[in-house]
Structures are given as structure tokens and as C-alpha cells.
């Protein structure tokens, strides 16, 4: 059968962010899949080195538009560890509360996107409508729908009062009802099950080999959850289960996320019942003593890792961010081996990718010379042409035409 390469991205209706996948197809079968990230590098790590710790809390919050609290909490935890700050219990509870609300909004968002990718737009509309409930609650608690700005070094910036607690528990009750409905939909809707089960299979041994994290790993039966393994915030005092599933496929990932939603509701009610009284912040020094720390946080997409190195000034010397998508993106090629083109959007979506958050710069130094190589514009241009040629996409005819047109 005739083989051809289809470029999915950098601009494509299936993708919400710019990234590029080249798919070698034979009919509808995927023969080869390669991914290329890096279209949305923003230089956040470098920018962190130029700003004070307090400014960095807001900067790291903007790494991701969806799991913003995950990134700022992760950063703040690392800084607090270096500074040796013990934050108040009430602050820990509020952080955890916002973190769980964020997980709910992220998982509901994912559910809608997954529905859209398999052409089930009704699910998208319903899931996103219900997501508004949690978005409103987040706005009520923090003042913002996405970038909450609730974290600060040494605690949180806003307290919650009894009215808010009542609002949250009312909303959670409503959301629980809706989520139970979605669980029923996922278990009964035939076309949805047909599109999801058996698609994007990732065996437990591959999870371990490729280092997948979050729901992607848990849907293959690997119990890997930072909240349980290395409790932070209030998680050590909460009673919850790590949801796993042994379907190993996209259907399993759907069930895991829905199950996690139900666990989140449980955790939130516990937080609201047991939230201790007391201050919400301790005084943090402006200059953080020299030291380094690695902090881990279970973002909705998986384990999020921040590394902070301080040198005694009010600015960090180095900040390194590893978003969960970087750990999961390797699994996509494995999952797509010998699959249908129609499965590609949902398999990519099933790791709940966040490509813009993942884009980091790696400087490769030539060890022999000890210097980085400089590339001029022309070199870059010819390099990009060669890069695409090697993947079966030839732009040279198009370029000639373009030149002709320009003349």
C-alpha cells in the first residue's frame, strides 16, 4: 500500500497548542510516529533567575494555564524547604483545598476535550458546563478563575470564611452528582466505549520503562501518586485512595480520572470539616539562605518537579521545572504503534498533554571545544529544511514557487 507522511501540527484542529507530529501512514495504519516539541519556549527558567522569590511565585504560576496552582505550590515548597520555614497547618489545608479544586477543574476539562477528540461534542458541552461550577468556586475563594495567586512564601494570602465553606460544600455536592452521571455515561455509552477501550495500550512494564506519571501510569495499574508516596500539604492527614485501573488503555485513563474526581470530592469534604484554626502565614525572609531543594507535587497530569538553588540573595541562582507532560510524552509513540490514524487525537489527548508548560531549553555543549555552537540564520534555515526532508516532507518545490512569486 502507498505510504505517505501526514504532518499533524504545528497548527491542526486536534491540537490546542503548537507542537508537531509527523505520522507515516500506510492507508489508515500508523507506521511511524515522531513528535517535536519546542514551539512555545518562553524562557521561564531564565526569567526566574532575574526576579525575586516573591515575583517568581507569580511567574511559576504562569507556567501552566490549567495547573497553575500546582506549579506555584511546587516552587513555594522548594523555597520554604531551603529557608527552613514551617508553614501553619491552616495554610496547608487551604493550599490543598485549592489544589484539589484545581484537579477537579482540570479533570473535567480533560473529559470534555476527550469527548471532542472522539467526536462526542455533547460530552464536551456538558463537561465544560459543569466545570463552570468549580471555576466559580475558585473565583469566589481566590478572586481568579485560573491563576489563583493564593500562594506566598510562608503560607497563603487569603483566608476562607464559613460562608465560603458552605458554598464550596454545596458546589461539591452538585459536582459529585454530575460526576456520578459521567461515570455512568462512561460505563454505558456504547460508541464511547468502542472508541476508548483497547486504544493506546500501555503495559505496566512500559510505564516503568518510560517513566510515565500521573493518571497515565495509574491507568496501567502502577500506584504512583506523590500525594501518597511523599505527602505534602495536608495530604498526610487526609484519608483517600489512589485510584488505579487495569485496563491499560484510554478507557482506563478515563475511569481513573473520573475516580479521582470522586476522591477529590471526598478529600474536600474532609478538608472543610477538619480545617484547623490559626494564622495563615509565617513571616518569610526576603533573602533566602544558600542551599538547594527539589520539590514534588502531584499535578492533575502527574508528578511535577521543581528544583531551586539559592545563593543567599533575594534571587534564585537556578530554577528547573519539569512538567508532567515531559515524562508522559515518550509513551505516546509506544501507544500509537500500529494503530489507526483515527486513534491519534485521543491517544495524544489521553496523557492530558500540556506542551507549552513542557517546553524547556537544553543547551548541548560540544565537549571537545567546551563551547556552544553558534548557528546563523541561513544555517538554521537549511537545518530546518534538512530536518523536514529526513522526515519525508519536502518544501523545496514550494520554496521555489514562493521565490518566483516574490520576484
Amino acid at each position, binding site marked *: 500500500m502507498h505510504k505517505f507522511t501526514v504532518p499533524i501540527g504545528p497548527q491542526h484542529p486536534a491540537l490546542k497548542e503548537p507542537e508537531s507530529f509527523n505520522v507515516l501512514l500506510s492507508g489508515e495504519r500508523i507506521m511511524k510516529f515522531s513528535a517535536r516539541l519546542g514551539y512555545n519556549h518562553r524562557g521561564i527558567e531564565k526569567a526566574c533567575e532575574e526576579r525575586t522569590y516573591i515575583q517568581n511565585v507569580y511567574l511559576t504560576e504562569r507556567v501552566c494555564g490549567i495547573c497553575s496552582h500546582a506549579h506555584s505550590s511546587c516552587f513555594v515548597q522548594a523555597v520554604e524547604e531551603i529557608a527552613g520555614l514551617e508553614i501553619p497547618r491552616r495554610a496547608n489545608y487551604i493550599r490543598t483545598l485549592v489544589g484539589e479544586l484545581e484537579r477537579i477543574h482540570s479533570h473535567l476539562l480533560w473529559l470534555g476535550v476527550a469527548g471532542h477528540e472522539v467526536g462526542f461534542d455533547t*460530552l464536551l458541552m456538558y463537561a465544560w458546563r459543569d466545570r463552570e461550577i468549580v471555576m466559580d468556586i475558585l473565583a469566589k475563594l481566590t478572586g481568579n478563575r485560573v491563576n489563583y495567586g493564593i500562594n506566598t512564601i510562608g503560607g497563603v494570602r487569603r483566608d476562607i470564611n464559613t460562608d465560603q465553606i458552605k458554598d464550596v460544600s454545596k458546589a461539591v455536592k452538585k459536582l459529585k452528582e454530575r460526576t456520578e452521571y459521567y461515570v455512568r455515561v462512561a460505563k454505558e455509552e456504547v460508541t464511547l466505549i468502542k472508541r476508548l477501550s483497547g486504544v493506546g495500550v500501555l503495559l505496566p512494564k512500559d510505564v516503568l520503562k518510560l517513566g510515565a506519571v500521573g493518571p497515565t501510569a495509574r491507568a496501567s495499574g502502577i500506584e504512583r501518586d506523590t500525594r501518597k508516596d511523599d505527602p505534602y500539604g495536608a495530604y498526610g492527614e487526609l484519608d483517600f485512595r489512589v485510584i488505579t485501573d487495569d485496563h491499560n488503555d484510554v478507557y482506563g485513563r478515563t475511569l481513573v480520572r473520573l475516580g479521582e474526581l470522586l476522591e477529590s470530592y471526598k478529600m474536600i469534604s474532609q478538608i472543610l470539616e477538619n480545617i484547623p484554626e490559626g494564622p495563615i502565614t509565617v513571616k518569610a525572609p526576603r533573602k533566602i539562605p544558600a542551599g538547594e531543594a527539589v520539590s514534588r507535587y502531584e499535578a492533575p497530569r502527574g508528578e511535577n518537579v521543581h528544583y531551586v538553588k539559592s545563593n543567599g540573595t533575594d534571587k534564585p541562582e537556578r530554577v528547573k521545572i519539569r512538567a508532567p507532560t515531559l515524562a508522559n510524552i515518550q509513551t505516546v509513540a509506544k501507544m500509537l504503534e500500529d494503530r489507526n490514524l483515527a486513534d491519534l487525537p485521543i491517544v495524544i489527548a489521553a496523557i492530558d498533554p500540556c506542551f507549552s508548560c513542557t517546553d524547556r531549553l537544553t543547551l548541548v555543549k560540544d565537549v571537545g571545544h567546551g563551547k556552544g555552537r553558534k548557528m546563523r540564520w541561513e544555517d538554521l534555515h537549511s537545518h530546518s529544511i534538512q530536518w523536514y526532508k529526513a522526515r519525508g516532507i519536502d518544501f523545496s518545490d514550494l520554496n521555489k514557487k514562493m521565490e518566483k512569486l516574490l520576484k
Partner: protein
Amino acid sequence: MIGSLLSIFIFPGFLFLMVFGLSAEFIDRKLYARLQNRVGPPWFQPVADLIKLFSKEDIIPEEANPAMFKAMPILALTATITSFFYIPTWRNEALYHFNGDLIIVLYLLTLPTLSYFLGGWYSTSLFSKIGAVRTLTQLFAYEVPLLMSILAPALLADTWSLTEMAVFYSAHPWYWLFNILGFFVALITLLGKLEKVPFDIPEAETEIVAGTFTEYSGRLLGLFRLSMDIELIVGASLLAAVYMPFGLAISPIFAFILFLIKVLSIVAMVSVLRTVFARLRIDQMVNFCWRYLAPFSFLQILIILALKGFLVR
């Protein structure tokens, strides 16, 4: 002469079908939106879309075959409009009829699908080509169940003409109830013909952008859109004529209103069906059509044959 021109261009020809097709698109979109808990478009939205498309520039890809690229939307539109003339609407008799027009209508309804294939194929874009191949694969899957299930009512009436079928069912007003099973098979295959969820595989936007229509723009895309709207109407009218052939003989105005209600209720069924399903994969779709729909349409024919033995005589 003038009479024929009037019927071709005004009623029940181009103008009527265009207005009816656009209103059906509005009803479909509005209902789809309401079922999804959205507000939905205002009533003039399909017209506005069409005006916008017609006022835009046509872009023809350099690699494409311009003649085929331009001809295909027109072929699709003319084929769908022509097929409507053989369907009885306001009386027992269609505008034109002869023995065998049922086959002609089905053939003419296949032409748009073929034109989607050729249009996609000749636009030479990768996404269009994949969409085109999927269109054709899908055609081979749904066409047989559709044909078989439409054969059953014709067998009962012992004719190949839609008009004569209408006459027969007017004489035996309750016989249409025997064809209910065939109606559901035909309704599902109609979703495939109209490329709607769960069978919108040829234009699955998350996989292949817009499929066949990826390279189409401006007037040509507008013509394709219009032909799809009219195809919806013609497909629904065909189903109404074959499976709900009651009430045509009473009075023209009553019959025509009844016809509109029948067609719009089939359109509404299409909207509901496309709300509640996810898009299937092409292999699942072919499997479904041959494994479930084809046997059911055979079963319908068996039921009719068994009934004919002692009922109709």
C-alpha cells in the same frame, strides 16, 4: 415550457429546496445546540453563512485539477436537486415519474458522495485524500443496507416507482407499519450518507482537518454546503415517501403540510442521533454496517415476503 422552468427553479425546484434546506439546517443546529445545553444560532445563521461564503474568494490549490475541482460542487448540487423531482410531496403523484424512479433517486443520491470523493481526490491535499478515501469506504458500507431496506416497502407495493408506491399505500393506509424496522435501518444509514456523527468519519476535524473539504473555500465550499443541506432534505423526504406514505391523498395543502412535518421530524431524529453518539472509527463503521444493519435489512425483506404471501392478495 414555462411550467417546467418554474418547477425546476422555483417550486419544488432550486429556490424551494434552498429555503427548505437552510431552514432544516437551522432546525438541526438549533436542536443540536439545545440538546447540548447551548443557546444555538439565530434563525438567519445558515443564510448568513451562505452569503458570507458566496462573497468570498475561491482559492484553488495549484496542484489541483481546476476543472474537476470546480465541477464537483455543481455536480453535487444538481444531482440532489434533480432527485427531489421524483419524490411525491403534496399529492399521490410526484412531479415526474416512471417505473423505476426509486432506483434513479437512490442513484442520484449517490452522486454527491461520489463528487465529495472526486473533489477531495483532485484537490491533492493529504487530508483531502484521506477524507476522500474514507468517503468511498463508507459508501460501500452503508449503501447496501440502505438499498435493501428501501427495497422492502417497494416489494410490498410491487412497484419500482415512488408515485405508484404512494398510490398503493394510500389504498392500504396501515401497511406502512410493516416497514418500521427498515425505517430505522434507513435512518441510521442516512446518517452515513449525510456524514453526520457517528458516521462523520470523512470529515473528522480532529484527525484530518475538514477531510474532503479541506482545500475548498468561498463559493465552491458554499455550493457543497448547500448541496449537503439539500441532501438532508432529499434524504429525509425519500424516507418520508417510502416509510410514511400516509395522508397524501386527502388534499394538496394538508398533504404538503404533513410532508413538511414528516421531513422535519426525520431531521429532528437525525439531530438527536448525532447528539448522543461519539464518532466511530472507519473499521468499526464498516463492521457495524455489515454485521448489524445488513442483516436487519434482510430481515425486513423476509418479513415483507412472508406477509405478501397471505396479506396483500
